[in-house]
């Protein structure tokens, strides 16, 4: 029987659901295994994610990477809440890269709601090692940490631990378990006055099996969740202490710098390393995946020696391709009409033909780099019988699988050490671990550990880019000026596909797409395809409103009538921003709303347009319904972060292809928003009681359309291409 990717994924998801329950019912053997991998004397695993020490310290092993989103604090909060632990005695450690600690519910993060996104197709490539390893995801991404690990994993684990400790107390005191009370890490039996701490009963509790069924607390009883507890990782971060991948220093370390194949898809045809090898301090030059590496005693030595390499590159026939070619081909592909239907409701073509009025526009957005502050790096030490890897990755197990693939070693002999990430934004996710492969490929050719560091230029020119997408949108307006049809034909990677869907009640809709044939490597970029499609949909919606003589906020409200949850968020943003109140000449206000990763975010942008200096974004009001709030201040920080990230892209972000390669080199030509440009940002939380939604990505998509709509309101000028800098506006 041929198993399709989709079948694998759907059954994987079902298994995921089962494993979620299984996760807290881990049996004694698994707990022993966990202790062997990551435990100490006097500590007892009540679950693979919980260790309780004799002194009562509760250590939560978090199976996600901390890249600034605060999960190393918020996940332990969820666990401690259900455990009734004293927060002052709770510690956090990142779990090592081992399936025992994996996040079993991850695929559901992408799968619910809607279809299995094609994003997971790539996972099958990673999983070719063993399809069964499909579930071995220890991934931070897709806004899954709190939504799945937290909601289904940490809470259940905490409740199970509480139950086991209470059971141990009832056995010790020979009293019914129902009479045991738990609060602040103390177990007590009020009738007899007996009292013991978690540490006193940890050893006994660890021998018990967890129950089959658990009762979770009512949110009304929360004393930890919902409070902005100081983040565990921050004190170290103000003294320069955290260890990022770039900071590790195993004994005997050498350094590597890389000459990357400049044109994507190309190769090294031939090279002469003799001059580089003659430079003092240079150890060797090796050919690796993606180029050539110089290994030297110091990083600066390796960097400088790159210039002495003489290399004849092959460009695989891509050496003439430019961004203009790619855009031209995307437009031609749309006009060629060989597109696949993603979604169709009613008769959009028919409605268009019968319409009194129609609006049509072509939008496009460029490639974008991630440009995390910590340039990509990987330290590896490969031995005949095993391998150590130190690198910032959003998915430790996928990194392990890649290292196994490069070295041919058994994955169980490969130790991927968790380190702090200097930003991820999707670049360090499982679909773009080229830098892990390259780092391991370098180290595999020498007997000592090697730290490979990409220069900023390497990082910018060899990214897995947010795809450039072009979309042609068409709408039909009825006699009253309301849209009766909405059509979106687009070319470019589109994950998840619901990013192009619209929440508005328009009777006839058709969404079609075509694959892009570009040679430019692409990857996941904060909010994935939502960032492109939100710009198209929410800008074009304003064009439709304008054509029909309608206020863009009012028309949104009207067409979201069957989505009261979205209307509530939209209203909160509009009211907080003072929608409709007059603004001075040269200023404008724009609105946009996007549902992504289980959250709804509406933003109102206020801009000032100066004929000389262009657009200045003065203010962003962001209303968000991200469901239950675990850590209000952390959530606000993530929303601010997502907005500023999107503002850099909206105003300045563009990766240009010329002669088959990337033109931009470093921050001056790929500029970032800085302190002086940062607008006032106001966040308004509008929790509706929906399940926990994403936070890290969800404020990013509405920014570009809100700013573009504000620009239109201020000047009457409609921008259909990003960034604004390209039009001389920033």
């Amino acid at each position, binding site marked *: 029987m041929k198993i399709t990717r989709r079948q694998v994924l759907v059954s994987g998801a079902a298994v995921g659901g089962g494993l979620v329950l299984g996760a807290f019912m881990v049996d004694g053997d698994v707990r022993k295994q966990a202790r062997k991998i990551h435990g100490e004397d006097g500590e007892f695993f009540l679950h693979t994610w919980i260790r309780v020490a004799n002194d009562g310290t509760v250590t939560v092993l978090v199976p996600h990477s901390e890249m600034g989103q605060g999960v190393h604090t918020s996940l332990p909060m969820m666990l401690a809440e259900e455990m009734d632990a004293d927060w002052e005695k709770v510690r956090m450690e990142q779990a090592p890269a081992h399936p025992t600690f994996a996040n079993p519910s991850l695929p559901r993060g992408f799968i619910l709601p809607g279809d299995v996104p094609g994003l997971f197709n790539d996972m099958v490539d990673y999983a070719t090692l063993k399809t069964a390893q499909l579930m071995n995801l220890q991934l931070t991404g897709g806004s899954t940490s709190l939504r799945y690990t937290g909601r289904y994993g940490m809470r259940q684990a905490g409740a199970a631990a509480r139950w086991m400790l209470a059971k141990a107390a009832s056995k010790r005191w020979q009293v019914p378990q129902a009479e045991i009370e738990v609060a602040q890490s103390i177990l007590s039996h009020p009738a007899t006055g007996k009292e013991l701490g978690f540490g006193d009963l940890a050893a006994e509790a660890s021998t018990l099996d967890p129950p089959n069924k658990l009762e979770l607390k009512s949110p009304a009883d929360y004393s930890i969740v919902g409070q902005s507890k100081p983040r565990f990782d921050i*004190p*170290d*971060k*103000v003294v320069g202490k955290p260890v990022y991948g770039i900071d590790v220093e195993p004994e005997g370390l050498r350094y590597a710098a890389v000459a990357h194949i400049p044109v994507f898809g190309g190769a090294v045809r031939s090279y002469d390393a003799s001059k580089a090898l003659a430079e003092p301090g240079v150890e060797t030059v090796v050919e690796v995946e993606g180029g050539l590496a110089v290994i030297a005693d*110091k990083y600066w030595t390796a960097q400088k020696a790159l210039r002495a390499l003489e290399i004849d590159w092959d460009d695989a026939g891509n050496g003439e391709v430019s961004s203009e070619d790619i855009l031209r081909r995307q437009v031609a592909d749309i006009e060629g009409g060989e597109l696949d239907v993603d979604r169709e409701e009613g008769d959009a073509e028919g409605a268009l033909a019968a319409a009194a009025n129609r609006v049509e526009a072509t939008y496009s957005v460029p490639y974008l780099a991630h440009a995390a502050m910590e340039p990509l790096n990987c330290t590896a030490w490969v031995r005949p019988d095993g391998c150590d890897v130190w690198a910032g990755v959003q998915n430790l197990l996928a990194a392990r699988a890649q290292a196994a693939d490069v070295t041919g070693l058994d994955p169980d002999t490969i130790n991927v050490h968790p380190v702090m990430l200097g930003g991820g934004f999707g670049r360090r996710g499982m679909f773009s671990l080229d830098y892990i492969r390259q780092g391991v490929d370098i180290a595999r050719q020498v007997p000592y550990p090697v730290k490979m560091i990409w220069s900023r230029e390497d990082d910018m020119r060899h990214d897995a880019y947010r795809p450039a997408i072009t979309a042609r949108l068409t709408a039909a307006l009825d006699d009253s000026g309301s849209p009766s049809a909405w059509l979106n034909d687009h070319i470019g990677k589109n994950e998840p596909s619901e990013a192009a869907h619209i929440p508005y009640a328009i009777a006839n809709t058709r969404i079609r797409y075509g694959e892009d044939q570009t040679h430019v490597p692409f990857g996941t970029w904060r909010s994935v395809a939502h960032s492109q499609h939100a710009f198209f949909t929410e800008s074009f919606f304003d064009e439709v409103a304008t054509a029909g003589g309608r206020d863009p906020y009012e028309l949104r409200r009207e067409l979201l009538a069957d989505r009261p949850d979205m209307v509530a968020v939209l209203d909160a943003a509009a009211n907080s921003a003072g929608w409709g109140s007059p603004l001075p000449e040269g200023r404008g206000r724009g609105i946009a709303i996007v549902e992504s990763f289980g959250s709804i975010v509406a933003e109102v942008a206020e801009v000032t347009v100066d004929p000389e200096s262009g657009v200045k974004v003065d203010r962003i009001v962001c209303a968000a319904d991200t469901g239950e709030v675990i850590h209000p201040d952390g959530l606000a920080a993530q929303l601010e972060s997502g907005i500023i990230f999107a503002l850099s892209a909206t105003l300045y972000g563009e990766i240009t292809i010329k002669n088959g390669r990337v033109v931009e080199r470093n921050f001056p030509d790929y500029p970032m928003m800085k302190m002086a440009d940062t607008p006032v940002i106001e966040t308004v939380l509008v929790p509706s009681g929906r399940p926990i939604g994403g936070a890290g990505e969800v404020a990013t998509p509405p920014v570009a359309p809100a700013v573009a709509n504000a620009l239109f309101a201020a000047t009457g000028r409609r921008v259909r291409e990003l960034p604004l800098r390209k039009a001389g506006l920033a």
Partner: protein
Amino acid sequence: MSYEIRVNGQTARVDVASDTPLLWVLRDELGLKGTKYGCGIAECGACTVLVDGKPTRSCRLQIRRAEGAEIETIESLSPDGTHPLQLAWVAEQVPQCGYCQSGMLMTSAALLRANPSPSDADIDTAVTNICRCGTYPRVRAAIHRAVGEMTPTPTGSDDQGTTGS
């Protein structure tokens, strides 16, 4: 080549090529890893240290030009994380990924030494560091908070650093 430099009040001797940026000397020769590499062209500010009290991007300062200067890194801002800026950074929960924050803190420390009560415009001019997590609003709030907490002690003994004695 051998160079003698003064870092965090101590004298160190290092043997590196004369054009080696101070950044890599601090990190790989002296083990002061709090100072970060971000761009290599003095654009992002992740590598900011103080050189004779001035905020300086160490990725573009060659070691031969750093001799004789008093260099201060994040490791010397306070012995125990209690510099008013560090306390304010924790109170405002500023860092996200944290990678740029050493540079942000050293830049801000230099600002407050030169201008104990900066306006928003002063902050905009002085703090040109890049943060991809977008912590700017909190950096600004934390600088103002630190100023507020430093004002009652006009002697400012807490901000003299550890060098120079």
